[in-house]
């Protein structure tokens, strides 16, 4: 060693591997406006598509007259269901085993449903033409209340499946019924409730919202008549699945379909499934022989693409009088809109809602979910929900608070009493999940100490007394939550999308000079995969992250994957990356042994090299081994240094967290000010702390929007009210609270690098935390449950009903 030999620390730092705040590779192009988003794409002779949409929520289509539109210069064609039907494309299969109309045939089922597709030379002409298509409708009675969907004599919504009593998920008990799904021990749960000392029961509703990424859904479809090949660029969180589905429904062989997801401006689950716009653009391209671009506008996005939530959860907890929970029973009425287009794994029509026992040791539980059709847009699984985990967490966290209130216990105290204990891991939940790892009590304690929980409750007591004396008009609330997330879908034994198992993949190739190219089957929409996957490889293989190029989204070159949503990338493709890297490392070790003329077993790995045990001056760096792989490999081995891994996870992963929020509610206006928000997340091994923090900030901001004002609401005529950014509550930098983030690290025992995934945790934990805080503010006046969103007028109305306005 001498002065110019780098130290271990320097060598590690040079790698920019796991655990460091590596600056993002993506940023270099984004900050210069050189992102490559779908609408940036311009192809020669490209056409534009735009939709004619229904103004009614439920109506028969009597006549479509496109003659005026067709007469407009620049309009090439107007497609209707009549044009798609001979191709069998007027309906498309959904991910939930239902079908969805691509263009409405005999009736429309939700306001703004697609009725006709204009193909024109430019987008302004397409919009002009859409106004000129005349459609004659006969209005039908509308169902917007899911509780009325299965009433006797309710209007028939889905005439196409009216007589089908066998749905995709079992028997349908009514023509507006989608499915019934149950899990858990019904009898055991009923017994627990019968003998319970204390029970609570509450209808906990999670309102319909929408993920609203800043970039809307869009695609460019280009069919090459000569080659018989289709290329589609699009906002696809799961590009390979889109390719397979496109092949199945178009009958174009899959090897002749090239799906490319370029840069995507936010997904949040909005861009997982297929939309009529994609199908129509593809058909339009085939019909015209020219590329066709479809870009939806914001109103279309908010009112027709994948909504989220709309779960009405009748929740009961049984407990002892000193606060030990003994049973959980939940019935969910799920509003699925006009078509069940939930992006769930096939065997899970209610997603992973059965995580609803949450972080608590319920000995027995039972869940039943009934999905119904209504005259609303299709979708349901989106918006950082991890497949209905957001609904489940909101449900259990509100219910625990309601139980605490009934027992006269502090909500944190009730939680601590019931949290799954460290020694119980791996933990078998009463609803069928095996939680991989966790130290919940340590996390809870850390969170409570960080905010000075005891002092907050003292302050609250003092402020409540002051309120009663008329000295203040503000109510202080403290929201506490503890959540268990379930991500990383998933093991092939129970997770598939349309029959394709939910593994994921990584392919890594090392070049002779030690540079690397790697491709994964996932697809970032802002999560920074180009940066973080490289960090995994850098640590595994001892090559600098800056020498590692990561690609996703091109289905021709990336190995098959199921895409990015449900916080699955790190648990699945991140694992595949480590596994592929380890295959490479094993081969490299053999090459090193050969070069150093020792046995493989005499070598040990150290940061970026194999060195001889007991003789560390004899080593070969990975960079040297890369070169050697191309010119001198041991007998019996092929040249080159690369590997592919398809990773079928053995289990889901279970990140968790403790969040605490302090609010002050102005009872005279209903305005809630967030004074403080502390979020502790445990996502196992932390690959890039800077990116984790960014994900938490973003998810908490979405949660803030949901809890405090977002809703996609339908009036009694089926009109969707306020699907614009004038009304849909997206907080600006002014309203958005400042976030405090913290962590504990409990690695996943079954994941190759112990990482669990984190992207959706803040939305899962954030919403109930805000909700519990607002509810907590009103408890001392006798309130037990206030529904979201906690916008000004609703909060004021609560205060009004409690009589505080005098």
């Amino acid at each position, binding site marked *: 060693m001498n002065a110019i030999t780098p130290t271990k620390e320097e060598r590690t730092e040079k790698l920019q591997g796991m655990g460091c705040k590596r600056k993002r590779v993506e940023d270099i192009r984004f900050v210069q406006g050189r992102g490559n988003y779908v609408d940036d794409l311009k192809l020669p002779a490209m056409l534009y598509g735009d939709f004619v949409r229904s103004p009614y929520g439920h109506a028969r289509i009597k006549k479509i007259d496109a003659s005026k539109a067709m007469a407009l210069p620049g309009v090439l064609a107007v497609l209707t269901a009549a044009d798609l039907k001979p191709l069998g494309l007027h309906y498309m299969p959904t991910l939930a085993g239902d079908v969805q109309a691509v263009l409405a045939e005999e009736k429309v089922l939700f306001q703004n449903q697609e009725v006709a597709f204009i193909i024109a030379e430019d987008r302004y002409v397409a*919009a002009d033409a859409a*106004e000129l298509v005349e459609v004659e409708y006969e209005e039908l009675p509308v169902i917007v209340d899911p509780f009325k969907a299965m009433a006797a004599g309710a209007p028939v919504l889905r005439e196409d499946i009216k007589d089908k009593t066998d749905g995709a998920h079992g028997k349908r008990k009514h023509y507006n019924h989608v499915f019934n799904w149950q899990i858990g021990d019904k009898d055991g749960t009923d017994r627990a409730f019968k003998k319970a000392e204390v029970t609570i029961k509450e209808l906990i509703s999670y309102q319909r919202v929408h993920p609203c990424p800043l970039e809307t859904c869009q695609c460019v479809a280009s069919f090459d008549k000569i080659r018989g090949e289709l290329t589609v660029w699009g906002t696809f969180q799961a590009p390979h699945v889109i390719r397979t589905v496109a092949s199945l429904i178009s009958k174009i062989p899959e090897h002749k379909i090239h799906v490319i997801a370029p840069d995507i401006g936010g997904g949040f689950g909005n861009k997982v499934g297929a939309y009529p716009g994609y199908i129509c653009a593809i058909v339009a391209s085939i019909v015209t022989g020219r590329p066709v671009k479809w870009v939806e506008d914001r109103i279309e996005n908010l009112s027709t693409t994948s909504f989220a939530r709309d779960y009405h959860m009748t929740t009961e907890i049984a407990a002892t009088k000193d606060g030990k929970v003994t049973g959980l029973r939940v019935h969910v009425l799920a509003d699925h809109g006009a078509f069940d287009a939930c992006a769930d794994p096939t065997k899970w029509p209610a997603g992973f809602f059965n995580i609803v026992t949450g972080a608590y040791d319920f000995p027995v539980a039972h869940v039943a979910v009934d999905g119904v059709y209504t005259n609303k847009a299709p979708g349901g699984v989106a918006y950082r929900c991890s497949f209905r985990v957001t609904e489940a967490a909101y449900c259990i966290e509100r219910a625990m608070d309601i139980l605490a209130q009934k027992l006269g216990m502090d909500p944190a105290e009730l939680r601590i009493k019931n949290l799954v204990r460290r020694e119980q891991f791996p933990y078998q939940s009463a609803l069928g999940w095996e939680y991989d790892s966790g130290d919940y009590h340590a996390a809870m304690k850390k969170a409570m100490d960080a905010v000075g929980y005891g002092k907050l409750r003292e302050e609250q007591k003092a402020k409540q007394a002051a309120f009663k004396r008329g000295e203040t008009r503000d109510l202080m609330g403290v929201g506490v939550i503890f959540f268990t997330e379930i991500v990383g879908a998933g093991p092939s034994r129970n997770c598939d999308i349309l029959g394709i198992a939910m593994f994921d993949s990584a392919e890594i190739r090392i070049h002779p000079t030690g540079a690397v190219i790697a491709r994964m089957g996932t697809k970032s929409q802002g999560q920074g995969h180009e940066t973080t996957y490289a960090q995994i490889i850098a640590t595994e293989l001892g090559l600098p992250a800056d020498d590692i190029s990561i690609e996703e989204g091109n289905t021709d070159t990336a190995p098959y994957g199921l895409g990015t949503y449900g916080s699955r990338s790190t648990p699945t493709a991140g694992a595949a990356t480590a596994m592929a890297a380890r295959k490479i490392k094993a081969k490299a070790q053999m090459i090193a042994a050969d070069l150093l003329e020792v046995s493989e077993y005499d070598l040990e790995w150290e940061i970026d090299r194999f060195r001889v045990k007991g003789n560390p001056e004899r080593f070969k760096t990975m960079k040297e081994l890369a070169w050697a792989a191309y010119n001198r490999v041991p007998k019996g081995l092929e040249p080159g240094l690369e590997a592919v891994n398809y990773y079928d996870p053995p289990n889901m992963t279970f990140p968790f967290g403790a969040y605490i929020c302090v609010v002050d509610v102005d009872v*005279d*206006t*209903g*305005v809630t000010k967030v004074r403080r928000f502390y979020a502790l997340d445990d996502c196992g091994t932390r690959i890039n702390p800077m990116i984790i923090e960014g994900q938490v900030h973003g998810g908490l901001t979405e949660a803030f929007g949901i809890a405090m*004002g977002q809703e996609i*609401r339908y009036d009694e005529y089926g009109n969707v*009210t*306020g699907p614009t950014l*004038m*009304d849909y*509550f997206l*907080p*600006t930098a*002014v*309203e958005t609270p400042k976030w405090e983030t913290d962590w504990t690290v409990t690695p996943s025992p079954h994941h190759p690098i112990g990482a669990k995934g984190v992207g959706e945790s803040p939305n899962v934990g954030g919403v109930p935390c805000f909700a519990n805080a607002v509810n907590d503010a009103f408890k001392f006046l006798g309130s037990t449950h206030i529904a979201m969103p906690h*916008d*000004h*007028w609703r909060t*004021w*109305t609560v205060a009004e009903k409690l009589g505080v*306005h005098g």
Partner: protein
Amino acid sequence: MLADLGDDARPLAGGHSLIPMMKLRLAAPAHLVDLGAIGELKGVRGEGGDIVIGAMTTQHELIADATLAAKLPILRETALLIADPQVRYVGTIGGNVAQGDPGNDMPAVMLCLGASYQIAGKGGERRVAARDFYEGAYLTALAPGEMVTAIRIPVPPQGHGAAYEKLKRKIGDYATAAAAVILTQSQGRIATCSIALTNVAETPLWAEDAAKSVIGTALDAATVKKAAAAAEAITSPASDNRGPAEYRRKMAGVMVARALARAKSRAA
């Protein structure tokens, strides 16, 4: 030019009310006459006991104007609550007062201040008091072919207190309810007072009775409560995503109470 083009033409000021409506195809004028280059329509100047503001003066320019900051601080306070920085760079005070959009903030301030609008048209020039200008939602005293060229505001007395209190779902939103108050006090008692309300009816509302009821009082709690009730009584808010009519009516009262308190604290 407007007169020649007739009904199919609209003047284009900042365009940040009109162009969004055109993009949604809720308005489709065949012609737009861009007022941007007309220098005489800009600027803030004193004229006798009045301040005259050219209709094409942007919100940004209002906020930056030293005269207004010193003599009419309520204008700056209100402008900062309109939309966002980008819109304020382009949106004009003329556009904000002349559309008849019940959501715009400046009209109530003009009612409160007793301002008047200078109007030009084919038939010449005339002046209309702001309090007489608003007839209904998007209905004003402007005849076809006419436009507002300037706003004339009598300078409030030195030592006045004024406040614009706006409740909104988020910064830049239209008001759930808002109140403009200007007052003077003498030995702790209110000497003069004017109150106006935003977005709680089809037009801005001048709450004449509410304002009268505080004259001569020290703005004690009971007085403020009565003034708020009097203001609420003249409202007829729309129910929308900001809240049901009854809530918005009550919020008009709360905004009046808070604006009165702030205005009083600022008055000499």
